[in-house]
């Protein structure tokens, strides 16, 4: 599904990320690498598996969409305790094998994790085509289009009087800001309260659906 932010076309992907078709830029947010490792180093036995899988998912996306650059809109890693040798070496190996430049617009989790030197460009925010990319939506300029993460948006859809489902997806904040869903499967979501004009596109079983919103 392709939408326009301002005049820039943006393709929403079912893999929890977007592609800017003109510049072949892939944008992801909230990967939270090393989250399970954070748990383990703090004495909670959560199995490993997410790091390798998440990095493979990114590689697959780069290949599938022939991306020319990757922008991570913050929270690439989870916490300093999670930056174990395994996490870091996996990440380093992945970055050095990556054929395209990687840009990280630092998020709150990245900052407090004290990321070591890595083969990527670290910035506060990044401008591509006409879009500003930053971690938190509040850091996007109001008057111009942009993409952010941080929120892990989801929408609660009621189907009957007693049941509802929580849908993870893209929150398009009127008029021209897009909030990406968290790339990581091992993170929670925040249920949004949409404002008038907003749109929400859910991702379920690798399918995109525009959800008719109820406004307060």
């Amino acid at each position, binding site marked *: 599904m392709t939408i326009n932010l301002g005049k820039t076309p943006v393709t929403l992907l079912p893999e929890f990320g977007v592609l800017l078709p003109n510049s072949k830029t892939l944008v992801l947010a909230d990967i939270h690498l090393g989250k399970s490792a954070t748990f383990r180093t703090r*004495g909670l036995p959560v199995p490993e598996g997410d790091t390798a899988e998440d990095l493979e998912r990114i590689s697959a996306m780069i290949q599938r969409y022939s991306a020319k650059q990757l922008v991570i809109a913050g929270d690439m890693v989870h916490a300093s305790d999670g930056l174990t040798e395994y996490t870091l070496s996996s990440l380093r190996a992945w970055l050095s094998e990556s054929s395209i430049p990687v840009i990280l617009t630092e998020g709150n989790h990245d900052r407090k994790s004290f990321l070591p030197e890595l083969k990527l460009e670290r910035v506060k925010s990044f401008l591509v085509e006409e879009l500003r990319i930053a971690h938190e939506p509040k850091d996007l300029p109001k008057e111009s289009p942009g993409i952010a993460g941080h929120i892990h948006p989801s929408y609660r859809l009621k189907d009957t009087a007693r049941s509802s489902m929580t849908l993870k997806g893209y929150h398009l904040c009127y008029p021209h800001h897009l909030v990406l869903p968290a790339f990581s499967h091992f993170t929670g979501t925040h249920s949004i309260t949409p404002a008038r004009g907003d749109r929400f596109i859910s991702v379920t079983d690798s399918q995109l659906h525009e959800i008719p919103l109820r406004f307060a």
Partner: protein
Amino acid sequence: MHKSLSDWIKKKKWKPFQFQKDTWQSFREGNSGVLHAPTGFGKTLAVYLGPLSETLDEHGTEISDKESKALGCQIIWLTPLRALANDTLNALQEPVKCLGLNLNVDARTGDTSSYRKAKLREQFPYCLVTTPESLSLLLTYPDTKEKLANLKCVIIDEWHELIGNKRGVQTELVLTRLRHWNPSMRTWALSATLGNIDEAILPLKPSGSEEGFETITADLKKKMVINTLIPKRMESFPWSGHIGTRLAADVCRLLEKKRTTLLFTNTRAQTEIWYQEILKRKPDWADLIAIHHGSLSKQDRAEVEQKLKQGKVRCVVCTSSLDLGIDFSPVDQVVQIGSPKGIARLIQRAGRSGHRPGQTSRITCVPTNALELIEFAAARDSWEKSEIESRQLLEKPLDVLVQHLVTLVIGEPMSVAKLKKEILTSYTYRNIKVKEWKWAIDFITNGGALAAYPQYEKAKIEKGKLTVTDKRIIQLHRMNIGTITSDSAILIKYANGHTLGTIEENFITKLKPGKQFVFAGKRLELVRFYKLTATVKNATKKMKGDVPSWNGGRMPLSSELATAVAGKIHTPDESREMKAVMPILNIQSKWSALPSIDTLLIEHTRSREGEHMFFYPFAGRLVHEGLAALVAYRMTRDMSDSVHVTQNDYGFSLTARSGLNLNEDLIRACFSTKNLIDDLQKCMNTAELARRQFREVARVAGLIVPQLPGKHRKSRDLQVSAKLLYEVFQRYDSDNLLIKQASDEILTKQLEINRLKKTLDEISKKPLELKETERLTPMAFPLWADRLSAYLPAGDAVTRLEKMLARLQKESQ
């Protein structure tokens, strides 16, 4: 008995009961045991004076400070409720104070200040009143072993409350550890009557040991009057909750007649509703009625309890929060709104009044629908015949075990072999399998061999002994001890900081600032909701406001009571309750037949919506939920139509556009036990249920870090929902035994698989009574109505229901 104590008893002009003398004697002979006696006959002194007297025999009554210190902790009193701790403390201090003994009796619970806790840990009191969780926590301190070296006796109060749940298992494991330290320690439990007392005492003694354990039963029956408020006008089509607060006027008359009344409701929401209703009818009682339930703040609850004890209130509207223990002597009447759903619960609540020996307990039951009258009558019968519910023991829950293992090795490093030997002496884990034990040890050391757990190490082996050294892990574990799980609760506060209590997140997120709701008996207006706190103010002008609901889950009718109810319906007696419901039963039998225990009644009828089938196995709501899904699944495997099911404590219903019929062979096939688990798993979405159950398992096993508002920011990175954890385990370590435990718990707890199997077996032996009916029968009506209210917005449902009711009423005349 030491002379000073027997003198004290004489001075109080108090004649000991036989069961008390028996208990003292048994303790003197070195026995452990269980004592069950009705409340209000002096159980406390029966078990307490034994060890106290022994101490006096050994040391005399003149105990110097130095001696007192050297005595150490000799008695531990375990109470399941911290609210009970203070009351118990007073009772236990009384003889010590009266005799001027230099012995310290003190309490340590979750409510004790950290300063007091530290003091108490430095010098343990002679008698320590505490909770299973608090005692378990003490095991994590290395010096506890030494401090408890002289322990004579552990007394477990209200054992019936602990048996059959994870707290009971935790208690058992703690006892096992104390016995391991001190093999001569005696254990005495106090318990209300249970249907299976022989089984219930097994966790109290070392597995396999038969000697030195005595069961003492007080041969006393509490005088009890169980009454029912019978509505003047009865509707023939009882629908759950339909009577609602219509009997409030009669209830108020009951309140006026007595000095102090406890008014029990079954849910917190009902408590709020009834409080408002009584207040409306008796505005002059504003200061004399109070409200008490588990979501109110600790201070407010304590204040109500205090007033109740001092006789300063006329009525307290409450939930099971006041079921237990505390002695409220002024209470001379109990009112129960709605069915208590179990015989033991009714007796327990009734016993809250007339709490002194010789006094009569009085309870008046108020129905919320007409059929509840039958439940009241059946419960009274069962009580008269002393048929009380059983509590089933748990099957070696591994989450409790791994928590306890970490607790143990934090306190005292120990070899794996020795640990195993100790755990095997507990009844619950007596036949733990090699595989399960290995998994538990892996879980706390390296996560397991099959899946990847790099860097994980909670406990490690040093010099052949399992130990935990990381301070952060120790601290986290201490915070985490316990088996009680609660949903993330939102604090309700006034702007000045006064806390009113907690509320569930999904209620408050639906409210907008400025909207009103009813809580703690007050009409409140939401000011703002931020993070985990909702700030409120008192509402000034009256608007429509909701009563919050809490996810308590409705209690199912116990199988004992269900059977009794079915019997009553089939052969009604002359009681007032049965006379009152006779008109309903007459319509039922005219239009269809009366359900009974000897046959299974099944009705089939048509309506505008299609076809309905109603089944009445009388097995309780949870079993019916499983049965309904199972029968619907099997009956409609070949149909394309979807089927709607509803259930209550008496039966369940299926509704479909078409295709339902009374074909006996087909119905028999649906109730077959063949492929039971498989079919259930397919139709109940057990995976989804297990995922929800996993929350509790993960919390107890220490995978979820409790979220404490405002504090412990350091653990913020560790916040994760059980749902996500479950998915991670499913993906990367699907053989994890905690996942299996969650699905087992769903089968046993949520679906009551054993009771369900038993019900199917019974049905296979019963003749089926198949009835084609022209319209909904009185028994079918509530099942039909339930469906309606689930799918329509509240207002519409009520209008439709009333229309339907009116029509049926007319046709029945």
